[in-house]
């Protein structure tokens, strides 16, 4: 199969065109995922662009994005495939007299009566596909096993029908918020990518790209304040999306340079716990 990307740098520039600023680690792993044909497991704090990465890669490669949102109680009829019982029933009733039983039997377990769900859809699709399995840590450990076959061999085994193998190997991204330890079996099959809060320069760049018309000076100041706040011992550190919200708010308020009072008054956009806000306000106004 033809590789999608020429080298790591091209991944980076490609993502940048989609307004996703990747660092070396992110671009490297995406490149590797394509070359090795392996899924990527993305972990990291909430709001650092894990899901967005998959979306941007899809846009960049012009592939269709198929998304499986995980939740507790997800099962194979919602993730993999399901037989269309109503249609099967109709088929049996439609020609009661003509067919012999064995013919009907073979017939009702064929492609026509199969309802594809996201995972099966992703591997049967003709056109290129990016498969996003979102918040995989929300399913139970037992359900994880459903994913293993598709992740390692890009195939789905259906007892009545046999094995369906992928027509093309999709790029697969799994995201996890780390609310539980994923099983070894799953981790072994994936490349691992930890997306952390960006460093100062990258955060500033993100702000500049995502918030139109923002001045360089303001973006710089925002990035630096956010960095200082993240260093505090907080319940929930501000995420990138919260930084962006904050930047947009400041733009709306028409603020050019942030001073103490403005920072304090808008802190509730960055931080979501009262104790955190109090702590940050205190820290920012007392310089040693």
């Amino acid at each position, binding site marked *: 199969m033809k590789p999608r990307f020429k080298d790591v740098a091209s991944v980076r520039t490609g993502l940048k065109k989609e307004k996703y600023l990747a660092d070396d680690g992110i671009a490297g792993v995406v490149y*590797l995922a394509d070359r090795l044909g392996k899924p990527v497991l993305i972990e*990291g704090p909430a709001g650092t662009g894990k899901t967005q990465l998959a979306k941007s890669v899809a846009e960049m490669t012009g592939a269709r994005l198929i998304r499986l949102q995980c939740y507790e109680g997800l099962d194979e009829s919602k993730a993999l495939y399901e037989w269309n019982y109503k249609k099967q029933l109709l088929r049996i009733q439609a020609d009661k007299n003509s067919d012999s039983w064995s013919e009907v039997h073979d017939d009702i377990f064929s492609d026509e009566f199969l309802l594809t769900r996201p995972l099966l859809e992703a591997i049967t699709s003709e056109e290129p596909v990016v498969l996003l399995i979102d918040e995989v840590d929300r399913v139970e450990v037992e359900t994880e096993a459903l994913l293993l076959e598709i992740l390692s061999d890009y195939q789905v085994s259906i007892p009545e029908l046999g094995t369906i193998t992928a027509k093309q190997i999709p790029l697969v991204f799994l995201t996890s918020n780390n609310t*539980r330890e994923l099983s070894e079996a799953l981790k072994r099959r994936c490349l691992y990518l930890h997306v952390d809060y960006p460093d100062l320069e990258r955060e500033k760049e993100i702000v500049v790209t995502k918030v139109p018309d923002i001045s360089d000076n303001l973006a710089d100041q925002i990035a630096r304040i956010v960095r200082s706040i993240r260093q505090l011992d907080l319940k929930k550190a501000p995420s990138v999306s919260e930084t962006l919200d904050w930047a947009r708010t400041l733009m709306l308020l028409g603020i050019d340079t942030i*001073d103490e009072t403005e*920072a304090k008054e808008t802190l509730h956009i960055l931080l979501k716990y009262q104790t955190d806000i109090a702590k940050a306000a205190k820290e*920012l106004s007392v*310089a040693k």
Partner: protein
Amino acid sequence: MPVLDLMSGFIVELRNAGLPVSLTENLDAMEAVKVIPIEDRDAFKYALGATLVKNNAHWRVFETIFEVYFSLRGPEYEITQDAQPDDFWREMQDQIDQVRGQGEGKGSGGGMDSLTPEEIAAMLMRALMNGDQAMMRALAKQSVQRFAGMEPGRPVGGTYYLYRTLRNLDLDNMLQKLMDANREMSNQKLSALEERLEKDEFQSRIEQFKQEVESEIRRRLVADRGAEAMAKTLRKPLPEDVEFMHASRDEMQSLKKALYPLTRKLAARLARKRRHGRKGPLDFRNTVRHSLSYGGVPADPKFRYPRPAKPELMVVADISGSVAAFARFTLMFVYAIQNQFSKVRSFVFIDGIDEVTKFFKSTEDIGEAINRVNTEADVVWVDGHSDYGHAFEVFFERHGKDINSKTTVLLLGDARNNYHAAQSWVVKEMRKRARHVYWLNPEPKSYWNTGDSIVGEYGAHTDGVYECRNLRQLESFVSTLA
């Protein structure tokens, strides 16, 4: 093929450090190396990381080992300075001349080797001031070469050299100096917020410089002794394996960071267990109601939702010097998952005992509460040496009546009683009233009952004594508890 040898040595070392690298992951790494050239050091590192390290907490360990094994590769990491681009050297020469003033002629040359220590310090300050990365790196090299006093074959660890280098550069005062210089340069007065931001910026640059120095020392050591030997001396335990009683300050920090995600995971797991674990008793009404749709046959039995009672917890912790860190961590841990218990009360003692539940009630910030426990709790009775016997006696006298069949009592400490009276009957009485009494001991099992440790005497009356030396053991104990 040298890369192959290097890789297998590298992977062996990862396993030695405790990272679970499986065979398939090993093969993946080899595949990855094929498509990523080793010359692109960062990409190479991320490629290996993505295939071999599947837990973010292990990344630091991985990075160190990577540095050791691959630090001598890549042009910008050469020890000799010839590889530096010319214009960089010219610029540096300019800076040197600037620092020295006009007097000495250009072309006296010799690069940095001819500088005096004061000049180096001045250049470092400039570099930090301007955030000049290349300069910082060059200075790190120079100061290691000059101040660390490294001798080949000397069996001294990297920390010693690091200490010597940093002491000579006087980095502790550097932050203050930078701030002062910055204040002088900008004419108007900075607001508190700006000042704070400047300080954070300088702090992070100094931190970066320190890392630069550290990795330079590491590179030189590797060149001297070889990767295998070096990796062995640098081997550090993973965060979850760090012992509470012997953790250094850095390790304490990483422990604290590891604690929060761990508790979150544990809480999620326990909540899930509570919901799914058992089926409740048969719900007769509901079953009959559903039987109507089957013509009165109870084909679909319905069960009540299980609502298992949450245990009540009483934590009684020794906070004398030797075990203080352990007590702190256990308290943090327990309070971080306190909604898994119906009630948590905590007591701390040395030779006197004091209830500290109120500190945790009054604030949501566990760290602050722990600080208040350390400073405000009244735990000294006579001389401030652990006296378990007296503490337990007073505890039982005051709060013994609150122990009931729902209560689980956790006793924390090394049971080193300084040869005071044991009063182990108190523990026996507690156990009679409580649902469970457990003892957690931060000492290794082999030390128990040696010297003045009488954990065996207390332990006989509890439902179990657990060795709790690191986060891993603490977590596995707490998960059985709730």
